[in-house]
């Protein structure tokens, strides 16, 4: 403590002395925040000592035996800690968070627990204790999650929703909802990257405006036609894009995750390993630079779409634009997803559900005979009408019948392609 101007001066609590570039000047600053490098630990009830786990109904860590509940996590929403694209964060984002352990000794019963690749939490199969912080700290560790959205839908509700979902749709095998044996739903926190940025776009294009003009044909008859006048135009579009979601895992189908991606990011809470207790959690295997590449592509496509809308016309050519990104930021968050699989006709199908909203997506088997029948039904009116129209060509009415047949055939082809695509997508992973 120094005595200055007759007053005692001491640095604020938590400050440390820093290196000074000039003799005679002391410098103090806040001590750097130490990264939490806690090792594996068991989440225990602070009341009865039993294994505690995250309770969906309570929305916090709770004891299933005595009813003890931990303090509720603070909802930070969209103000959850975000990072910038510094050289350091990009380098850290290239490597995973910690390194994989192959085996963990249960803190409760001492049993050896085999761990899967990339897990963040585990449960002991012998004493049912819930282990968190199971990753081994590497010297140069990657990026930890900063926030997560808690599970708010119970597994039994998901099972019901999946049964209902399986029963919908006409081109699936009959009784799919009741016949398919859906395995136990596994609630797992999947890693996601969220990206936010401001985009300023300048576009330039030839924009066409259509008008009707009158003219006389070679026979001197008065006729009208539509012509398009092309003019160069330019404009500016500003977009504030927030929380573009990119999955941080490649283990689950990106297509399926895309269908349940409507997470409410306003429910984000600050990351606490205790919230993972009793639930599965994965670390990212898609690096920050790779995810940002995908996020950036999604953002610039939205900017392109917004610029196209800004032209105010459906006739656009020689389109060019720039998109300047500013205030880019990222977050590494964990989002709740239920993953399961079911067997039907000796085939396995994957189904996922949003653990926050209950939205379900997945693979469904297709009864192809129904699809082909539907396609045949859609094409046959055009074909039959055409066949009738051919002999009628001998009469004046034949040409009109053939035109109607052609229109019906085109409509049938379009409908058939749509049905076929739906069927293919339904089975696709």
């Amino acid at each position, binding site marked *: 403590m*120094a005595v*200055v*101007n007759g007053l005692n*001066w001491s*640095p*604020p609590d938590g*400050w440390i002395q*820093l290196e*000074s*570039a*000039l003799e*005679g*000047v*002391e*410098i*103090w*600053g*806040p001590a750097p925040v130490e990264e939490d490098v806690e090792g594996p630990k068991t989440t225990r009830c602070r009341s009865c000592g039993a294994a505690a786990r995250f309770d969906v109904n309570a929305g916090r860590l709770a004891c299933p035996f005595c009813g003890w509940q931990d303090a509720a996590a603070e909802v930070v929403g969209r103000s959850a800690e975000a990072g*910038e*694209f*510094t*050289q350091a964060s*990009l380098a850290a984002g290239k490597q995973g968070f910690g390194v994989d352990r192959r085996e963990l000794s249960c803190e409760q019963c001492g049993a050896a627990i085999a761990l899967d690749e990339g897990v963040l939490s585990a449960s002991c199969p012998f004493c049912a204790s819930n282990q968190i912080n199971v990753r081994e700290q590497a010297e140069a560790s990657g990026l930890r999650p900063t926030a997560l959205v808690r599970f708010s839908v119970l597994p039994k509700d998901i099972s019901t929703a999946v049964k209902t979902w399986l029963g919908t749709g006409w081109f699936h095998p009959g009784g799919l909802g009741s016949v398919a044996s859906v395995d136990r739903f596994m609630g797992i926190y999947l890693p996601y990257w969220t990206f936010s940025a401001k985009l300023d776009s300048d576009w330039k294009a030839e924009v066409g405006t259509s008008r009707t003009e009158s003219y006389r044909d070679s026979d001197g008859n008065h006729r009208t036609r539509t012509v398009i006048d092309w003019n160069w135009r330019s404009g500016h579009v500003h977009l504030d894009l927030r929380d573009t979601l990119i999955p941080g895992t490649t283990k689950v189908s990106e297509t399926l995750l895309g269908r349940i991606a409507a997470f409410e990011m306003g429910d984000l809470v600050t990351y606490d390993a205790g919230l993972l207790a009793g639930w599965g959690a994965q670390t990212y295997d898609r690096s920050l630079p790779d995810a940002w590449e995908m996020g*950036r*592509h999604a953002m*610039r496509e939205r*900017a*392109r779409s917004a610029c196209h809308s800004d032209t105010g016309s459906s006739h656009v050519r020689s*389109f*060019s*634009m*720039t*998109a*300047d*990104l*500013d205030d*880019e930021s990222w977050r590494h968050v964990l989002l709740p997803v239920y993953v399961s699989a079911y067997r039907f006709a000796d085939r396995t199908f994957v189904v996922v559900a949003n653990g926050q909203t209950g939205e379900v997506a997945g693979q469904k088997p297709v009864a192809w005979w129904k699809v082909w029948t539907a396609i045949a039904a859609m094409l046959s009116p055009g074909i039959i009408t055409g066949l009738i129209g051919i002999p009628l060509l001998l009469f004046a009415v034949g040409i009109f019948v053939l035109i109607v047949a052609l229109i019906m055939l085109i409509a049938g082809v379009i409908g058939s392609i749509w049905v076929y695509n739906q069927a293919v997508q339904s089975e696709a992973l």
Partner: protein
Amino acid sequence: MTVGCDTCDARFRADGIGAVCPACGQGALAGAEGGDGEPELAIAYATTAKGVSKSLADYAGGIWFPTADLSEIPGRVVQVWWPRWLVDAAIDGTWEAQAGFDYEVASTQEVYSGGWTTREVTDTRIRWEPRAGRAALAYDNISVPALAIQDGGQFSGSKPWSEAQAGPWIRLPDRSQVEQWPTAVQALRSRVSADCIRACSADHIRDFYLEMSADQADWTWLLTPMWASWYTDDDGVRHVIRVDGVSGEVSGPRLASKRKGRVWAGILFSAAAISAAVGLFIGLIGIVLWPLLVVAAVLLVLALVLACVAIWPAVHPGRWNKGQSA
């Protein structure tokens, strides 16, 4: 001996009773009291009287319609030592600030022209961090004005004063060390602030707050080299022109003569009037003798041009002098 000006109260150590005051140029110097103490340091002249006379001649010749007496300034230049105080002090204090450190973030600019191309861009941002600490520093030769009206500044290259350097004029301080201590403290605060910023190795500083005490003041009387001259304007008011003895920089108002401007305006306007009269006369003859109408038109245009040009000498000296006063 000590002489003083009854107009500006400046005092000089010089044998100059009855001379024009080199400080204000207004009063005549008379015997005065005081003038104790001896200068301790001086900065040597880096300019010569011949060079200064040439600089003053150039300075006086660089304007339109100069006051007649302005051309006399090279002949009236005198060598005058100008006083300053140097103070040595030690400070002890505490400070706090927000220190800003530059860091780089990767950004991109996307360009679409049939397909996308990406250009990598690096942006520089500032990370602000709180800093605080204690400063115990000692400073030598903080420059403080010794006159009521005197610019700030830092002076280097001073050497011990000797009477051999004296010259005809030495201006005496009109502010004591006690009176100038608050000014010295202000100068010290600026130096301490700059040093705290340097100590942080920060790229930027904001919200800087310093609380300090300073003591152990040791004062030194420094003489700085100066040249002074004067001239009288149209209204009989004298103005002083000074030349820095080290840099040779000339300062002081150089006024244009409004009287001279008016004379030139009168000449040009008269010429315009004569031209207009002759033009009109020839124009009247031109009614009969048509070719003369061309000559009349030329003369009338000339008259118009001269009348317009005559405005400039009438207006310019006043506007120029206003700028000099500012």
